[in-house]
């Protein structure tokens, strides 16, 4: 399936993603921030589809938007947001942080422009139809050990989260 109107969709989704990103870091209300982040995540999922990564896009929607963000919303509702909304939103060093981040961004762009020639021009043919299968082959073959470590990480995270969040153990 050939993507239609690639250019249009790229700019649309990229615009939405950046807009969401900006809203995440500027909103006073944490719930609004979370919603903006969901917008970013969903438009990134769209971009992943355009990058011939449908499986990652599906995982992105199911895990990020449907799972992690629900967790975020839960926690935001548990901690009172009325109080924190009235407080100062940015810390005292915000100017330094902003400048440092912008410098970092400039560095990135500079590197990209200078190092553009290093990218191979020819794209590897990614079969969309076999995408899931290819990922599975890598996951259970080449990256099996990493995969197991990731599962261990998740287990540790589950236990850690329970220990942290429980009132009385």
């Amino acid at each position, binding site marked *: 399936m050939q993507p239609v109107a690639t250019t249009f969709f790229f700019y649309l989704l990229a615009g939405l993603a950046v807009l969401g990103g900006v809203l995440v870091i500027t909103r006073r209300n944490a719930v609004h921030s979370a919603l903006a982040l969901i917008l970013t995540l969903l438009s990134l999922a769209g971009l992943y589809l355009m990058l011939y990564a449908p499986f*990652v896009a599906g995982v992105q929607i199911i895990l990020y938007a449907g799972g992690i963000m629900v967790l975020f919303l839960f926690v935001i509702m548990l901690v009172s947001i009325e109080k924190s909304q009235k407080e100062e939103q940015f810390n005292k060093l915000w100017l330094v942080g902003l400048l440092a981040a912008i410098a970092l961004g400039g560095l990135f762009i500079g590197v990209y422009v200078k190092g553009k020639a290093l990218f191979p021009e020819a794209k590897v043919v990614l079969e969309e139809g076999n*995408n899931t299968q290819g990922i599975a082959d890598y996951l259970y073959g080449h990256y099996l050990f990493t995969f197991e470590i990731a599962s261990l990480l998740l287990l540790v995270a589950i236990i850690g989260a329970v220990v942290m969040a429980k009132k009385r153990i």
Partner: protein
Amino acid sequence: MEALGQISTLHYLVLAAALFVLGVIGVLTRRNVVIILMSIELILNAVNLNLLAFSRLYGLHGQVFSIFVITDAAAEAAVGLGIIIAFFRNKETVNVDEVDLMKW
């Protein structure tokens, strides 16, 4: 630079860089720890976008790796939010710059 009409890897990289910078700004400037965590998610997503953009050039490894990144993000969110809850329960605040004691 290529024409705007042709979407190249560079476009994706610039977008990823933009999201990354936004995330860094969020982490460095915000006080609300929940929003800081969300900014970290932004950073991770920027990394993912990078990985996927490169996977179009170098094969599926990038996609596999982005799945690991998502796993990592899930673990980080769970533990991070757990810490926030524990922290909020004791301090009644979610501001990072009030976390200035080693114990409470």
